[in-house]
């Protein structure tokens, strides 16, 4: 897992937040997380495949998820309905999509799968490689960006 794979996700997350929610988050200290860990209450999961493969996870509390969904939908939500989950999933899609565009600029050919949103405490997530975690403080609360990616050799990437 290279740190250079993480930077595009941080840049993309900041840019998307600034554009969609209208405020720039603050960045916390980068750390490592072993391959199996417990998620937050709400986790947006996006798969990455190609020359680099693995998972990007965006974790947050239920309260933060509700506030972010409200900001995206421009209305105060009291319950997280299907539309709110869809909005959070789309946020994950925009961050991951923008991140892989930046990875492509660095010469990595990668693709993403449609994200899903996991809800629930104490869910254990296993990744192929240790994750690099970057906390992002938004006006809506803490969002943890977890990036667990590894480089495939070209032959392997072509076969996939």
């Amino acid at each position, binding site marked *: 897992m290279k740190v250079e794979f993480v930077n595009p996700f941080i840049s993309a997350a900041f840019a998307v937040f600034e554009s969609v929610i209208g405020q720039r988050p603050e960045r916390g200290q980068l750390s490592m997380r072993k391959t199996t860990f417990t998620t937050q209450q709400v986790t947006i999961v996006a798969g990455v495949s190609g020359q680099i493969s693995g998972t990007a996870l965006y974790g947050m509390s239920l309260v933060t998820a509700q506030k972010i969904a409200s900001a995206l939908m421009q209305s105060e939500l009291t319950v997280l309905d299907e539309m709110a989950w869809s909005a959070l999933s*789309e946020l994950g899609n925009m*961050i*991951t999509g923008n991140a892989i565009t930046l990875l492509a*600029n660095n010469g990595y050919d990668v693709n993403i799968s*449609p994200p899903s949103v996991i809800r629930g405490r104490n869910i254990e997530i296993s990744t192929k490689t240790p994750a690099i975690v970057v906390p992002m403080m938004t006006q809506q609360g803490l969002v943890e960006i977890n990036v667990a990616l590894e480089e495939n050799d070209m032959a392997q990437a072509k076969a996939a």
Partner: protein
Amino acid sequence: MGKRILVVDDAMFMRTAVKKILEQAGYEIAGEAENGEVAVKIYNETKPDAVLMDITMPVMDGVSAAKTILKSDPNAVVIMCTAIGQQNLVIEAIKAGVKDYIVKPFKPERVIEGLNKALAA
């Protein structure tokens, strides 16, 4: 009567947001689809004036769907509307006959401007 647009995106939130933008600009919604396969089917049924097409979707992705639509109707007005903006994908889509390529997150004006231009051409 406003031009009829087919809105294709797997995220219900995005379809709803785009439909609102289109309706406010005087466009009509020809239909909506949550993946490329459904998009091709609805395109053939409704023959919309233009299609706004996401790329990352389950079942059939937007580039494949755009190619399928443009193969059977070379005059189709298809605009990609996606979070991924890498050059090789943009080139692939434009080569296939797509009229415009909008990267998410976008400003509402950008979608309307792209549609107005593509439909005027």
